[in-house]
């Protein structure tokens, strides 16, 4: 089985495993305890916080740990909505966001929020002018993800951040797919809130984080999970020490020179996969050629073949998906591709390939041959 679904989840890097192992059985303390076991856990958590903060140009006091990006997105949206009710109830987001953002917005609507869903162009990008026009005096937040999980398209984060700050609106970005892989600097990019996750960057599942700006402007966030007052009163619950240590280590690995080389090599493999498959009849890329996008993602459509048929064939040998893993059970066509202007049939005949650091040239060669013969067979029989 060849794994080409790194956007769904990643295996934990062995280097991360060896870093976190002591925190399970030996240094197992509760980071809130005052004795040596607790202090050791606390120190490890704070070192992790500092390391993650440095990676994104933040202060360590601005990093909150959560159970994952979904919780982070929920906290950012619900926490802000609650805190800024005095200013307004209007939130702007994008039609192509992850369900964690869209479903939180849908919930907030039942609590009195007004949500504007910005459309995207065929490139998957939002129109900055449209964003500017959508901002009102009662707008409290703009939520735009950094890089899309399905298309890999990268939004103009810095321009959005600038616009938001000019208009005195909080800018929240879900950077789950981008962290580690793209340079992010919360100061230069003018990000106020940023969600991220461990399991998309070769760290364990069950851990994530939220960057919360403390200065210029100081973002106020109402706690959603009450309890012991952990994480500066923004997120209670005993800290998942191994998970936190693992997430920081995983992020650190991305900055190692040898790792940078590996990551750069992924693009060549993606380009090869894409170029070979685009030669097949009826195969098109869903992303216009010049669009700025993640270097490890390809989103292709196989016209005249339904994705379901193709996936059924491919999934015996290839781990790929038709879109977000979170919605595979729903069988609905991808909301991201529909928003980019594809028809339902086109969306349903599309497949996302996402490569990762353990993808090999041989796997890509095999994948090309598997896909080629499957597509030919299916075209012949349809």
């Amino acid at each position, binding site marked *: 089985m060849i794994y080409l*679904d790194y956007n*769904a*989840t990643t*295996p*934990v890097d*062995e280097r991360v*495993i060896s870093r976190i192992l002591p925190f*399970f*059985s*030996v240094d*197992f*303390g*509760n980071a*809130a*305890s*005052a*004795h*040596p*076991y*607790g202090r050791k856990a606390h120190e490890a958590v704070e070192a992790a916080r500092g390391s993650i903060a440095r990676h994104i140009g933040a202060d360590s006091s601005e990093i909150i740990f959560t*159970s*994952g*990006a*979904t*919780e982070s*997105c*929920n906290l950012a949206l619900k926490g802000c909505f609650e805190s800024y009710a005095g200013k307004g109830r209007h939130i702007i987001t994008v039609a192509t966001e992850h*369900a*964690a953002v*869209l*479903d*939180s917005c849908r919930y907030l609507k039942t609590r009195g929020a007004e949500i504007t869903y910005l459309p995207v162009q065929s490139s998957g990008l939002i129109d900055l002018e449209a964003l500017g026009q959508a901002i009102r005096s009662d707008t409290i937040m703009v939520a735009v993800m950094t890089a899309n999980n399905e298309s890999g398209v990268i939004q103009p984060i810095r321009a959005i951040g600038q616009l938001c700050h000019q208009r005195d609106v909080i800018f929240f970005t879900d950077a789950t797919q981008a962290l580690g892989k793209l340079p992010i600097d919360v100061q230069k990019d003018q990000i106020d809130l940023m969600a991220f*996750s461990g*399991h998309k960057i070769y760290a*364990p*599942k*069950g851990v994530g984080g939220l960057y919360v700006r403390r200065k210029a402007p100081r973002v106020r966030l109402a706690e*959603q*999970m*009450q*309890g*012991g*007052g*952990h994480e500066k009163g923004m997120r*209670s*619950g*005993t800290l*998942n*020490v*191994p*998970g936190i240590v693992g997430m920081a280590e995983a992020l650190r690995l991305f900055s190692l020179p040898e790792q940078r080389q590996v990551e750069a090599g992924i693009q060549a493999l993606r380009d090869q996969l894409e170029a070979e498959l685009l030669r097949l009849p009826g195969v098109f890329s869903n992303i216009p050629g010049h669009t700025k996008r993640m270097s490890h993602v390809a989103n292709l459509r196989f016209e005249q073949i339904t994705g379901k048929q193709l996936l059924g064939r491919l*999934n015996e040998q*290839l*781990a*790929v*998906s038709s879109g977000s*893993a*979170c919605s*595979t059970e*729903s069988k609905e066509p991808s909301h991201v591709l529909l928003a980019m202007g594809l028809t339902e049939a086109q969306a349903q005949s599309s497949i996302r390939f996402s490569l990762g650091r353990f993808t090999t040239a041989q796997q890509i060669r095999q994948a090309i041959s598997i896909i080629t013969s499957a597509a030919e067979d299916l075209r012949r029989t349809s």
Partner: protein
Amino acid sequence: MTRRIYFDNAATTALDKEVLDAMLPYLTTHFGNPSSIYSYGRETRLAVENARKSVAKTLGVHPAEIFFTSGGTESTNTAINAAVRDLGCTRIITSPLEHHATMHCTEALSKRGEVRLEKVAILENGHVDLEDLKNKLSGSAEKTLITLMHANNEIGNMLDVEAVGTLAEQYGAIFHCDTVQTVGHYPLDLKKLKVHFTSAAGHKFHGPKGIGVLYVNENIKIHPFIEGGAQERNMRAGTENIYGIVGFAKALELAMAHYEQERSHIQAIKDHMIKRLESEFEQVRFNGDTRGESLYSVLSVSFPETEKTEMLLFNLDIHNICVSGGSACSSGASVGSHVMQALYPTEHLVPVRFSFSKYNTLEEADLVIDQLKKLL
């Protein structure tokens, strides 16, 4: 350096090596997203569902009633918020001795005007006054949530869950029981207990941190607390923490398989501590119902406030003895324990909580007592 003694197992426990062995493959080779339809996803989906079945069986409930969360705090927040928002509870009856998760969650709802908050009276021995609970329930026809913990994390007192469940049923109330200190430490048959919700956390019984369980009775329909995906049958969004889920189930399985043996081992340590504390320290006082309905793994004592006792926790720490003044969640804060404050409001006492696990020994208990003698 003297050897370190860990008597703070109510705060968190060491992960069992067997649990770690069960978890590790799910970090590396079996890493698929359970929502994915290919084999990587199918094998982790299977692991999650097997874990759910195992947990359900141990707790005497149906697998569809078990939901995995990020921990006890999330489970409790989910249950309490759902009782108010989805089940229409306008009154919450709780106690002044609850964990901060319950306390702060209920207070926030009350502050926002969504519920009326009532605190049930506490008897001298630290138990919930069931008569008072009954009076409160019969005194109003409002839809009510009762949220009370099974074993108190600071003093170990155990609630008569069956009696509370029966009262809840009689008055049509919703009953959430915070079982964070008892799941994995005590045989629970939730179907018999007439509870609607219970909370559990893996790291309290030698499982991993970052994973918890919420039991929701099948007759209750609630909305998710964390939104954004179809996981946990649309009840809890977010990619499943597979290694955590596998670890939780394994830890619970081990805990219950060796329950009798471990319980008597730990009970012996507690009994020995009690006996020696009584004979060596005239002024020691046992908090709560230590010799009665009390969890075998928790022992809370107090010493009168003196120059020496004020430095007790600090000095125990210096001598590598890990205990706590209250719950871990508040140990960093300078505010005293709300449990002690509620139980003994007028007394100047220094509380010390000893909490034991299967890894502790009688010898360690003696070492701790010997050290206490030197310090006091």
